[in-house]
């Protein structure tokens, strides 16, 4: 057995994982496991900015940011976590700057800030400049800066190791099993603390902004080990994905003044959200677009509308939005200086995930009981600071704030008293069965159709608009796909860098994440944030102001659902108007 022992093992090398690593690198033995090289992590694709109430451009307060976050999340946000998020965002952004992050600057040399969807001054009066940014490649700069700091602090990386299993013994998380892609060997990592920071699962949908690597690995592995997944039905579609390819065109475009136009050239957002207009939150703008298309005002009667930046002028486009305008040129052959860009909503972000408390500890029941030794941060986790709909820029805030908190809690509270838990007997057994099962099967269908059918089904039935009939059909389809997946065959039986094996394991992870998503959506008979159901059009605070916890059960397609209350401190639920 390939055995490794570290105080802390962090799985995932994006912003959350590396931010945790920074808190721990000085005085404990840590390892970061990543199925990619760290700089390939999907944090690097984030564009528009990271919100913090620095007040560099105009008056701002973290309480305003907190209010926007709670309201944006349609009151499903745990407000204790929302307060932590918005207060600590400020210091976390200064940390990044001190580590060298090249933010854009104001004329007097401070971090420049710009407008973003749903971020307002004075509790909803109008847009505010809160997003700290580096052109439209803020995530790239965060990832590079964190990786640079990891090099400086000599963090020990296991690159291109894929986590296959989480080891729990006597109720304590004691390690993970990972496969080295290079030679297919399994490795057991024994640790006092584990941080899951493996990101989201956008690849479950046909049109997505997410990288091919975003397959919900951490969520699925935890789910299979009896840990619940929280609020998985809350999945965000970003309004402006490049038509057909889904590549993200940042909300920063609208923050800088871009318009959304229907076939009549009308700025239709003004009709739906007179105050915030194009800068209404993402769940709403995605629905506005669906509504326009449904009523025949899509471009050429098709399923897309236009994002127009031409009126901003070449200089502003080149300075503030260089990458996204290049995407339009490169992938659609559209010149944004002069032409509007075809866009459609694209699957983007999981508000739900592995439940944690504000220290980043994974909590496993309705009473929020922590599992000793287990932490999660970033998109894989559900703190819950995004509730039913995340505001733009708050994903990067979540990474740095809760990545930092998880690392600090481990360093200051957990490691001083923790012992290494005993590994379970034959710790590799489940991972070995999984890999050997796949490598040995020589008959049956290959992965392609299963993946395509899953992604089509999620897009059609579990997208921006859901209803009872569609969700029932989705779950039936999911059960069928899981049965077929249990017999899936590989074409490649090599142990050397077998990416087909990796993809098929990822597909299994997507199926598990989708199961929890559909089940949560079926049971939530209301419309809230990103979860919109025409058959239950109103938000229902009496019955559904609560978090879903989905536990995998013996029966495929029928997870056990439990619920826990939402933490409400400052802001009582009100109707959302923008």
């Amino acid at each position, binding site marked *: 057995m390939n055995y490794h022992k570290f105080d802390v093992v962090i799985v995932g090398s994006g912003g959350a994982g590396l931010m945790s690593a920074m808190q721990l690198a000085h005085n404990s033995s840590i390892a970061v496991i990543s199925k990619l*090289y760290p700089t*390939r992590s999907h944090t690097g694709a984030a564009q528009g900015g990271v919100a913090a109430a620095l007040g560099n451009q105009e008056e701002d307060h973290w309480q305003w940011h907190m209010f926007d976050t709670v309201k944006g999340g349609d009151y499903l946000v745990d407000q204790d976590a929302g307060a932590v998020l918005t207060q600590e965002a400020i210091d976390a952004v200064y940390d990044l700057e001190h580590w060298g992050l090249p933010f854009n600057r104001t004329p007097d040399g401070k971090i420049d800030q710009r407008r973003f969807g749903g971020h307002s001054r004075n509790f909803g009066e109008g847009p505010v400049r809160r997003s700290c940014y580096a052109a439209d490649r803020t995530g790239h700069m965060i990832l590079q800066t964190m990786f*640079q700091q990891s090099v*400086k602090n000599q963090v020990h990386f296991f690159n291109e190791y894929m986590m296959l299993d989480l080891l729990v013994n006597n109720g304590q998380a004691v390690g993970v099993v990972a496969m080295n892609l290079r030679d297919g060997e399994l490795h057991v990592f024994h640790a006092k603390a584990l941080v899951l920071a493996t990101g989201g699962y956008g690849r479950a949908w046909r049109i997505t902004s997410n990288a*091919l690597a975003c397959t919900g690995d951490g969520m699925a592995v935890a789910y299979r080990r009896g840990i619940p997944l929280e609020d998985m039905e809350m999945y965000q579609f970003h309004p402006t994905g490049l038509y057909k390819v889904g590549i993200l065109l940042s909300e920063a475009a609208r923050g800088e003044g871009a318009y959304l136009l229907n076939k009549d050239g009308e700025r239709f957002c003004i009709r739906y959200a007179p105050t915030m207009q194009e800068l209404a939150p993402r769940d709403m703008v995605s629905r506005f677009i669906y509504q326009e298309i449904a009523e025949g005002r899509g471009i050429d009667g098709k399923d897309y509308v236009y994002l127009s930046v031409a009126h901003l002028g070449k200089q502003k486009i080149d300075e503030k939005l260089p990458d996204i305008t290049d995407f339009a040129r490169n*992938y659609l052959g559209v010149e944004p200086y002069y032409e509007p860009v075809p866009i459609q909503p694209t699957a983007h972000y999981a508000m739900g995930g592995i439940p944690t408390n504000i220290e980043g500890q994974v909590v496993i029941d309705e009473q929020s009981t922590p599992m000793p030794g287990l932490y999660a941060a970033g998109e894989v986790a559900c703190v819950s600071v995004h509730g039913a709909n995340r505001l733009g820029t708050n994903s990067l805030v979540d990474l740095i704030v809760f990545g930092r908190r998880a690392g600090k809690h481990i360093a200051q509270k957990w490691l001083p008293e923790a012992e290494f838990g005993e590994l379970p007997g034959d710790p590799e057994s489940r991972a070995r069965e999984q890999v050997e099962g796949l490598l040995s099967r020589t008959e049956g269908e290959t*992965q392609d159709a299963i993946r395509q059918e899953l992604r089509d089904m999620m897009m059609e039935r579990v997208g921006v608009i859901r209803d009872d009939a569609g969700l029932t059909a989705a779950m039936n389809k999911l059960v069928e796909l899981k049965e077929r997946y249990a017999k899936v065959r590989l074409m*490649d039986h*090599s142990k050397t*860098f077998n990416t087909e094996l990796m993809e098929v394991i990822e597909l299994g992870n997507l199926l598990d994440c989708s199961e929890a998503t559909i089940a949560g959506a079926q049971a939530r008979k209301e419309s809230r944030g990103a979860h919109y159901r025409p058959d239950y059009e109103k938000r229902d605070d009496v019955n559904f102001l609560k978090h879903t916890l989905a536990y995998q059960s013996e029966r495929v397609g029928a997870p056990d659902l439990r619920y826990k209350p939402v933490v409400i401190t400052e802001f009582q639920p009100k109707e959302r108007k923008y």
Partner: protein
Amino acid sequence: MAGDSSKRRVQIKVKRFQPDQRAEAYWQEFSLEVEGTDRLLDALNKIKWTQDGSLTFRRSCAHGVCGSDAMRVNGRNRLACKLLMNDLGARISVEPMLGFPVVRDLVVDMDPFFHKYEKVKPYLINEEPAPRTERLQSPEERARFDETTKCILCGACTGSCPSVWANPEWVGPASIVNAHRFIFDSRDRGAAERLNILSDRNGVWRCRTIFNCTDACPRGIHVTDAIEEVKRAIMYGVE
């Protein structure tokens, strides 16, 4: 929208290396239907998912920002996710980048590349106590090193450089780009250390200004110019 989205058939010739089965690399041709607006990466995925699951390459973001899928396409280093079939003709050759040990098919060993990157101290060096808020930097000072902040460490420049092919010990263009990013950052105090590292015999002077790196960079970084600026900084100090 520009671009032809009608289907057509292309031949993609891939240089394969399957170390479990054959000691030598060999070429294999695949024939498939593509749309003009498909990315080369989409075509490779289609081969992998429908014809030959053993075809091996790295990929992640699929839109040119993560740097996983650098490979040599029709003789030039490119990201497979940034090339459209419309721009490639009907016969396409794909092989791993030169100058890297090949692991399998298009997957090369990136570890030596990252070790060289680490040598140039690619992180902010400034031991002065940080202020409570941000360190100030004017927009002009920020603009001075903007170009080299764009690097995604894909290796396309380093793998295209004849000086790297001739001498694998050479630090190579990507490392110099990342040194440049800090040498010209007004907040950094480590320029002297880095320039010292880069002035040794495996430093900047092995650059012969061939410009392959600049041509290869998928982020449009003027790599050769950045290397020249570092050379000048060694000779005359940082401006």
